[in-house]
């Protein structure tokens, strides 16, 4: 019952989910629900803004994220980068991006040789089953990445209202 995660066109299912969100929020709204989601292209643009013209190579980075998430409102993830973390060679920054939330950025962390270990853990929201990408910037100017495809059964519903 999975639709193609790369298909940007709203499926009947997504329209129904959107309608459900609106109904759950308990207010009438014209049916043209604004699609406020980032796209893979928006993610690529956000990544370009961080890495510039540099080439991002796969490897060295490990993004730990459960492949199947029941509740998209809180998804714990860990990024670990292989690095000696010495003044000569360390990780300068780690950036995390997602494909289908309203905005592609998740978090950017800045560290240095004093970290001792290039790793951090946090919690994200995921609006849909999507790809999450972690990119590490090393002190030598190179960029490395890892990505995980996540299936989310209950999304962090963007049209949700608060009580």
């Amino acid at each position, binding site marked *: 019952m999975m639709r193609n995660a790369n298909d940007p066109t709203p499926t009947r299912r997504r329209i129904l989910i959107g309608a459900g969100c609106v109904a759950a929020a308990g207010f009438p709204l014209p049916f043209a629900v604004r699609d406020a989601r980032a796209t893979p292209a928006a993610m690529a643009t956000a990544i370009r803004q961080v890495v510039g013209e540099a080439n991002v190579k796969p490897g060295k980075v490990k993004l730990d994220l459960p492949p199947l998430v029941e509740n998209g*409102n809180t998804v714990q993830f860990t990024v670990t980068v292989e690095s000696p973390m010495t003044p000569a060679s360390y990780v300068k920054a780690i950036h995390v991006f997602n494909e289908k939330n309203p905005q592609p950025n998740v978090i950017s962390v*800045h560290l240095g040789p004093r970290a001792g270990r290039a790793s*951090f853990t946090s*919690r994200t929201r995921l609006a849909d089953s999507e790809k999450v990408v972690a990119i590490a910037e090393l002190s030598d100017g190179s960029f490395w990445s890892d990505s995980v495809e996540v299936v989310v059964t209950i999304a962090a519903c963007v049209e949700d209202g608060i009580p």
Partner: protein
Amino acid sequence: MSAPLINVPARAKRGDVIAIKTLISHEMETGFRYGTNGVLIPRDIITAFRCTYNGEEIFRADFYPAIAANPFLTFYTVATASGTIAFEWTGDNGYSQTASAKIVVG
């Protein structure tokens, strides 16, 4: 506003890599949700976190709306000297919160 939860080991050996955990209570309102009155709820998030060790910055993070409510962070640092590890969160609408922990390095 409740105090942030900080977990820093009280003692460490010089040169040890220690884990620091922080949890702070905050809605992290994304700015993409509509209230029951149909009006967009304005964004209200923590945008920045900074950790200093005896005044020197050791870790900094930029948060975006995709960070879950009650932001949680675990990160690492090398225990270099006894002293204070200080934490600072800043965000929308002038939000600011600080905390600190003492560490003894022997």
